[in-house]
């Protein structure tokens, strides 16, 4: 198919345009708003409840929140990772190509000519940027509300070690990074789903369903052999980042796994998108 040629400067320009479209969209800000509501709700509930949550009560780490506001971010990230965050990722990645096809803008981008491979790369890059921004919103809002309500102090890690405020800040940022990386594979799956249809909602739903199914499969002990291959396998592995000494092996394993999903579904998306007739 035509138009596939390297064009360094203009690819950057196209990515910038892609991000502008993403960030000018009401839908994107609605999702950021919904994500921001999670740490706010969490912090308010803990702040106004009569007795502080005891160890092991409620979502993970909730009991740490009162010691150090930074933990609001971490708890909110852990809470949003299984479902809420993947939903937003599914919306953005599932809509990447299908949404343009549904609007009819895909044919105009292609005859511009954007180049099919270039457009696919830019679309994935846009979804990846969103996968970084979404947990970053939770992180930053969590920091803001947590430090306002609970202050910033020393924090006790899961290993029992005590770290200072700076350390807590760094750890919670690392957790957000882990969550962002976790979403890269799902974004690739969404991109592939997006090349299969001109109905954006269909691709979004399929992607979200896969995220849930993978987590359900991850719960079944009978499928233990499969678990290391599921893209959701390390999703809740951020706890390793909250121990002393800190272990990065989960982070790197996750990165390798997500890169594998990106390579596989990226190749499928390429094969599909560069050969299909654009008739919408």
């Amino acid at each position, binding site marked *: 198919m*035509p*138009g596939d040629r390297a064009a360094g400067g203009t690819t950057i320009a196209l990515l910038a345009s892609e991000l502008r479209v993403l960030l000018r969209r009401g839908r994107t800000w609605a999702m950021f708003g919904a994500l921001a509501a999670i740490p706010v709700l969490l912090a308010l509930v803990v702040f106004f409840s009569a007795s502080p949550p005891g160890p092991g009560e409620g979502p993970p780490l909730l009991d740490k929140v009162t010691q150090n506001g930074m933990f609001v971010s971490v708890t909110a990230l852990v809470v949003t990772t299984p479902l809420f965050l993947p939903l937003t990722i599914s919306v953005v990645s599932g809509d990447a190509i299908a949404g343009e096809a549904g*609007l*009819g803008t895909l044919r105009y981008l292609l005859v*511009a000519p954007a180049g099919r491979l270039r*457009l696919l790369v830019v679309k994935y890059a846009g979804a990846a940027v969103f996968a970084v921004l979404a947990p970053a919103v939770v992180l930053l809002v969590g920091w803001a509300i947590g430090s306002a309500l609970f202050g910033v102090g020393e924090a006790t890690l899961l290993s029992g070690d005590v770290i200072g405020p700076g350390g807590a800040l760094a750890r919670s940022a690392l957790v957000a990074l882990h969550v962002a990386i976790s979403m890269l594979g799902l974004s690739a799956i969404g991109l592939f789903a997006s090349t299969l249809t001109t109905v954006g909602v269909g691709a979004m739903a399929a992607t979200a369903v896969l995220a849930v199914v993978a987590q359900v499969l991850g719960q079944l002990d009978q499928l233990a052999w499969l678990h290391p291959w599921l893209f959701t396998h390390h999703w809740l592995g951020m706890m390793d980042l909250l121990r002393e000494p800190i272990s990065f092996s989960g982070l790197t394993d996750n990165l390798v796994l997500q890169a594998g999903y990106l390579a596989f579904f990226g190749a499928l998306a390429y094969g599909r998108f560069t050969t299909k007739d654009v*008739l919408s």
Partner: protein
Amino acid sequence: MTDLAVETRGLTKRFGHQLAVDSLDLAAPRGSVFALLGPNGSGKTTTIRMLLGLAAATGGTARVLDHEVPGGLGAALPQVGALIEGPAFYPFLTGADNLARLDAADPRGRARTRSHRVAEALERVGLTKAAGKKVRAYSLGMKQRLGLANALLLPRELLVLDEPTNGLDPQGTREVRSLIRSLADGGTTVLVSSHLLAEVEQVSTHAAVMHQGRLKAQGTLAELRAAGTAQVLLRTPDPEAAAAELVRFGLVVTGRQQAADGSTDLTATLPEDAPAPEYLVAELVAAGVGVRGFEVRRPSMEELFVALTGEGFDVAR
């Protein structure tokens, strides 16, 4: 460089069992305003999609601006502006932002000149006042104008306009016609498709007529007009004698109708090798036939178009 901007040989597109385009041989010369005519469903848009690389051909070859399709389209498309099957935009962006977005996808669309070119293109289609409005609030006609503006963001060698007057009021239709004329005067080749001959007949130099995926006729407008057989209309009080006389000169009488003044209107086809009309009239009078009216008619483009594609509201399939 050949003198053809668009050339197809045996171009074919099959969807399942249906041949949407059937061995099409198009030849649109550079500098022409080439009208691709045909009723809805005749394969015009599918042809355009193949020419622009949106759909792959099932068979045959195509060249656009001397580049193979689809292999060379990366080089050809930056020289092509297009409006394909109606305008399509992001409803949540303004008109100007939509143009900037599509310009960013064009390898020739330099960021430094972008806002200037966008403003110019909007001005050209009369949308300057609506530039800052979200496209959501645009009427169909305004979207159509914005689609034309997108095709005009950069100077192009070839413009492909699929049904450019859809949704436009008569005033807008006239504006599009004068826009096409001014672009053609500037040397741009314009390939314009329409199901309404009247919309493009005044501006086009060449035309091709498609019906059910097949090419029915192609050439300059003059060639196409000449292709129809001429007819003689004769009003006479002596139809029998007149018919005998016409047949003697090789004409075929095809119709006979009672006229108001008690005479008869005879219709006959006039073969190319028939005698000149004035000679026929002289012979008729010499044979004692009363001639109350005599006319040689060539079919209008409209009649030709209907003859080639059939009439009525049914879509082709």
